[in-house]
């Protein structure tokens, strides 16, 4: 099966055409929203779907969706009712959902009969307990907005946790593993899960909360925002730009330095930022252990997952003091090797198979 995988960002999108075994082709389309009319981005992708000068047609299309609210608890196949639900959610994710809806509609037009699968980053976290989901604010003071913690790298967290669960079963284990899944992306996120049941996440109602990233500040005192607004007379948009685009590692070290760089460099200033990141990670792990009662595995995923080779041993050493009940697994760290497009391929293939089976079983109407 060949599946076209689309990973839309705020400005650019990445696409991958994959089979079970291989990445056939991939690429990036910049400013894809500038050309929303006439199926602009999809046209462009379609024109590039070739291998050795031969045109390739996808058998399914998978689109990564950063936000599915509490509505989408699993992947969904494009249909009228799914689109309607996404339109209802769109005001809560104005930077992503309208453009994704447009892309999906274009894909449906351009590749008639090819199923389009939406894979939601937030689906994994819809099972978060209410005590973790809610903020300590007056629900009536929110101008009608539904505000809850959602988490944002659910696709990789879920896949990494599933792999550990499979490993435990292969090894003959019967207890549910307690996992901290650390997704090392430009906006990193640590989540705690019992098996594949999410218990806690550092991500918030948006991806800004939690660990700091390449350019994002992570968790900060809300009093600072008020100070900036009062002293600099900045509006929310201006503050948002600084917090999301000029903070994090960029704010600490200067332009262009990424999370992966600070763990592979011997520079003194980089090492200081490593210390800062590790400390925030340690706090997150401590909270996760308190949330789960114990800890068996730490797993790293994401495009900077190799930094896990430095972070993992450090965390295992720091958390080595944790007391274990008899029979519990000794704390271990692992790297989840698959990239997002591989995981999305597997998820989409399974969803299409399920869809096809369902379709095959539908009784014929008289």
């Amino acid at each position, binding site marked *: 099966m060949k599946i076209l995988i689309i990973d839309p960002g705020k400005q650019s999108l990445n696409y991958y055409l994959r089979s079970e075994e291989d990445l056939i082709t991939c690429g990036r389309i910049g400013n894809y929203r500038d050309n929303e009319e006439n199926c602009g981005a999809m046209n462009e992708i379609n024109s590039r779907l070739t291998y050795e000068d031969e045109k390739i047609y996808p058998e399914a299309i998978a689109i990564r969706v950063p936000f599915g609210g509490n509505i989408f608890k699993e992947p969904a196949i494009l249909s009228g009712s799914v689109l309607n639900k996404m339109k209802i959610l769109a005001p809560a994710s104005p930077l992503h959902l309208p453009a994704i809806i447009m892309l999906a509609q274009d894909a449906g037009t351009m590749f008639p009969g090819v199923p389009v699968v939406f894979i939601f980053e937030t689906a994994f976290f819809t099972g978060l*307990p209410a*005590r973790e989901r*809610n*903020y*300590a*604010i*007056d629900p009536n*003071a929110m*101008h009608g*907005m539904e505000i809850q913690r959602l988490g944002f790298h659910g696709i990789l967290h879920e896949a990494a946790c599933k792999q550990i669960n499979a490993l435990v079963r292969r090894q003959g284990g019967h207890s549910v593993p307690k996992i901290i899944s650390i997704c090392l992306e430009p906006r990193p996120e640590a989540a705690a899960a019992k098996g594949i049941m999410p218990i*806690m996440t550092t991500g*918030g*109602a*948006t991806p*800004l*909360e939690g660990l*700091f990233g390449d350019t*994002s*500040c*992570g968790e*900060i*005192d*809300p*009093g*600072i*925002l*008020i*100070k*900036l*607004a*009062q002293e600099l007379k900045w509006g*929310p*948009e201006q*503050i*948002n730009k*600084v*917090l999301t685009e000029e*903070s994090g*590692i960029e*704010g*600490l070290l200067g332009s262009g330095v990424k999370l992966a760089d600070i763990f592979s460099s011997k520079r003194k200033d980089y090492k200081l930022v490593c*210390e*800062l990141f*590790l*400390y925030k990670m340690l*706090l997150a792990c*401590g*909270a*996760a*252990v*308190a*949330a789960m*009662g*114990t*800890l068996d595995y730490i797993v790293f995923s994401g495009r900077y997952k190799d930094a896990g080779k430095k972070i993992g041993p450090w965390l295992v050493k*720091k958390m080595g*003091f*944790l*007391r*274990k009940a008899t029979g519990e697994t000794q704390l271990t760290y692992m790297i989840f090797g698959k990239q997002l497009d591989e995981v999305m391929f597997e998820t989409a293939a399974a969803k299409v198979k399920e869809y096809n089976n369902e379709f095959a079983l539908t009784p014929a109407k008289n």
Partner: protein
Amino acid sequence: MGMKNKEMNVLVFNCGSSSLKYRLIKMPDEIELAGGEAQRIGPQTSEPARIIHREQGREETIYVEMKDHGAAFEQILKIMEKNNKVDIIGHRVVHGAGIFNNHVVINKDAINNLKRTENMAPLHNPPAVRLIEACHRLYPEIPQAAVFDTVFHSTIPWHAKTYALPGWIKRKFGIRKYGFHGTSHKYVAGEAAKYIKKPLDKLNAISCHLGSGGASLCAIINGKSADNTMGYSPLPGLVMSTRSGDIDPALVLQMAIASDGNFIEMEKLLNKESGVLGMSGISPDIRDIFKTAGKSGIRDERLALTLQVYLWRLKKAMGSYLAVTGVPDAVIFTDTIGETVPEVRQESCAGMEAFGIKIDLEKNRNLKQLPADISAPDSEAYVLVIATNEELEIARTSMELVA
């Protein structure tokens, strides 16, 4: 006899925006001689200004006009000096603002520097600074000390106090974690060290200052503050009576957009209308929620959620700091909620065996007197309930500084 052993009466002031709490403590015996509170200082209000004074087991209310904190101070001193002399005055100052990394004896330079802190803590510091000025002007012969809540946290290391924000913003506004409730955390750490008979400079502990208003946790390593859940301001961290504690910064911006960029409204919402009050909709006091939950019909779901979020956030913060300290010598609960609500101690310590912590449910429920150890026999760490006494800590510090 050295100065430090000389008998002295220390008058401790804790200044609010329209109130002034005071205690007169005889040192070094640490005996409270008198105490009270001046209320409704400033412009006339619907109720008259008054001083509620306690001494020798009696309480009296004295109605007297007090146009500012200086006037309140003069009245308090008059009442006090009927029976006692005042040798030293100790002032609680909330924020050292990075200017004061140590407590300080008051002189002209110190007053000038104190004025520079006002911008950083506009709600808390100005009345204290006005009071210190007035005391210095009216009674220059009485030595005074300023004792800062933030000083105990000046040992928080770089990696715990730094925000991942652009350097120019941090430099321009002195943005970093300052931490608060330091006087209380320091006091209970000292008392815990005494209780478990360990030198303070070897004590590793988690101090949970759970007030009926503000609340914070402090990680203590070798007797020094290593981290505090409050930050640049007293807003972040745990769920408090009316403060939200930690919240996604983008959410604050979204709310600001929804209220047409009105950050004053945001400040009010996050500081005064959130936390236990905002979630429950009925009371800022978590004790009321414990009492009412399960008995209030349609509100029950909201009250149950308030309790869950309050306790969950506390437990997670404890876990974070326990990862920093390792198995500690002690977990300490203090202040109104920490001392008097067994459910909070029970729930926050439940399932924490991985950190070497286990409480004895019976001991926890039937606390007779403080300090007390409520840990189970197989707990590796002590779990202590200690009554905080910030005024005594201020008296001790003032005495040390002045003597």
